């Protein structure tokens, strides 16, 4: 058990490690939409409008600006719909939270369901006939596997 705890502890520290790296143009491009091609991310688009945006990103990267400053510049120019990632504020927070809330609800419901099934199993609320059928089905499947193995031998 102790070994298990040590291993878990090590894993915990392992996953905490996160490193930083230099900003590239493509990392900024991914977060922007081409102003000339609505709906198309800048890293996919190749139109001349996109080229102008890319040139501006290069210029700002050369000045040493960080990603958020560059994105803010484009938001000022074209509005928030130039971003591929909705800003984490106001109603947009729903988009970020909803999947995890849905997961949480799903996990809780699944947990309750399993608990109910487990309770039914322990109290034997399923009828004897059903249990017998279930057991029979299970045994049949096991027999089938053994039969198949035997047939293979015969082959």
């Amino acid at each position: 058990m102790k070994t298990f705890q040590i291993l878990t502890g090590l894993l915990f520290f392992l996953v905490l490690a996160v490193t930083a790296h230099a900003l590239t143009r493509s990392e900024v491009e991914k977060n922007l939409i081409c102003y000339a091609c609505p709906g198309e991310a800048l890293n996919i688009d190749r139109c001349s409008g996109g080229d102008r945006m890319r040139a501006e990103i290069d210029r700002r990267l050369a000045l040493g600006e960080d990603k958020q400053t560059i994105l803010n510049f484009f938001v000022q120019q074209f509005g928030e719909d130039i971003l591929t990632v909705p800003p984490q504020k106001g109603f947009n927070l729903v988009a970020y939270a909803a999947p995890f809330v849905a997961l949480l609800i799903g996990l809780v419901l699944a947990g309750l369901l399993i608990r109910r099934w487990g309770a039914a199993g322990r109290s034997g609320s399923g009828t004897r006939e059903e249990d017998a059928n279930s057991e029979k089905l299970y045994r049949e499947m096991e027999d089938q596997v053994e039969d198949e193995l035997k047939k293979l031998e015969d082959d």
Partner: protein
Amino acid sequence: MVTLGNLSQSAAFITALAAMVLLLIGLMRNDLRFIEAGRRALFAVAAFATMAAFALSRLFMTDNFQVEYVASYSDRALPLFYKATSFWAGQKGSLLFWAWVLSLYIALVAWNTRRETTRKNTPYIYLILAGIVSFFFLLLITVSSPFELLPFMPQDGKGLNPMLQNPGMIFHPPTLFLGYIGFTIPFAYALAALISGRLDPDWLKKTRRWNILSWIFLTIGIILGGQWAYVELGWGGFWAWDPVENASFIPWLVSTAFIHTSIIQERRNIMKVWNMSLIVLTFLSCIFGTYLVRSGILQSVHDFGATGLGGFFLVFMIVAALGSFLLIAESYGDLKTKHSLESLLSRESTFLFNNVILLAIAFSTLFGTMFPLISEMVTGKKLTVGEPFFNMVNTPLFLLLLAITGLCPLISWRKASVDNLKQNFLLPFGLALSGGILLFIFGIRELYPLLAFTLSLFVSATILLEFIGGARARKKLTGEGLLLAFPKVVWKLRRRYGGYIVHFGIVLMVVGITGATAFKLEKEVTLQRGQSMEIGAYRLQYNDFKSYQDRNRTVYAATLGVTKNGKPAGDITTERRYYINARQPTTEVSLRISPKEDLYLTMPMIGNNNEITIKAAVNPLLVWGWVGGVFMVLGGIMAIIPAGSRRQTA
């Protein structure tokens, strides 16, 4: 041919309606003769649909540009191969393709069930399928006929979008459609079971192969789509979380959940409501994908724009959803499971959690896809939700799914003891952790990639243990050597091991995707002849430039000498093409693939004096993603190979 096409479509619609009427009369009067007549009418629907499909193919082959659809997607210079596949390049043709394949699937069901017409649920299966196919033919003959004529005969057609002139794109749409359409069959069986009250797992057993086959097609379609994006679009990626890509991914996730829990219902006769709901959701999500592509409600590089069909599909979806869930609600008492689990810790429980995670990913993908519309309705502001958002939200969910994929095989069916779990768990966990520590030492320090690789090791170890365990069991039973027992047990229990091969494919895919997204190198440089650029271990020197005419395009090709780690590694040529009748040039991707990494080159611009702009990328491990896709498909195929096929061939 135009007349043949129009008449065939109309005849298919009328025959489908006639089949419905005959089946209804047969059901009301309990008269088998009418049911048999209705069944036979389904073959006629398939025959008429085939004639319509033949007519459209012939119109493409003979360059009949008076047909508006042919003029829009073909031209005289288009190679014959692409002319044949232009059939499904546009909205109208793809709708006919859908109706045609569905009618063939229905004919197959009608043939396979020819001795089952006396069963209570069979006529309902026919009725539901006839209803669905008649909807598609109704659209074809009223609002979306591919046989509409132009008032004049153009000299030439507009041609096929150059980006679609790629082998991956030829098979990507039809395989996706084969998947989408295939789920109609289990949906019809499920509804028929609800209507007829035959709620035993028979419908699941009968549709198991349909489910897995449709899932395989959907998988192939999605992978081919990613492969097409990678080698054709030239942006260096393979999945952009575009609304239409998402529309294909959602049914894949829901159907994957369904395939897992249908195993539980088959084994234990529990989760009936859940499975009914999942197959309904799978079918609805397939129709939703079609709706999304044809409604124009969201902007995507893949959609057909506003086609006027959005409303029809929306109504169809609402009717199908209401009808299905009302039927489920009505049968809830009968569907409600009376069986129970002996233990909270069982494989059944892990399947349920796996379902929750798969559905959470499906929900997050759907919600993110629809969020621009939701946001516009609530706040009045239209936003765009792109790749970084989906990666941010879905990556933790995928990692959770990967973890449970590894945990599942360690937990026994029905009842698992904690001691047993510990015994099974310790070795794969130890292996994965050791691997994780080594990866950390060797420089992988980012959280998600480290977790993805560590969990991949964990899942691989559990799968390996499963295979070894099976071979050992057979060895013990038969006395065979381990090397002989291994393939024999895998083949004999191919449904089970096919599933594990699919899981291993997913592991490889995770490795490929993680490598190519987390450790990707990218660079864009403008070069004069003789100049060079460096990326990773590669040095690329611009050596040569030429232009020439090739069939329906003018090609501009630049050749670069490649040096890797200072050693010469041959030449690589990248192209820019101008297709006849196309309004914009295309970049052709040049690839050098190795197990370690892909070197990826495109030439987005050509300047004066043959100055070129090269966009280069190094995508580590990506090839394993494609290999993983092959494993997934092979594992799926293995799981549906019928027992006894070996004996038949002998």
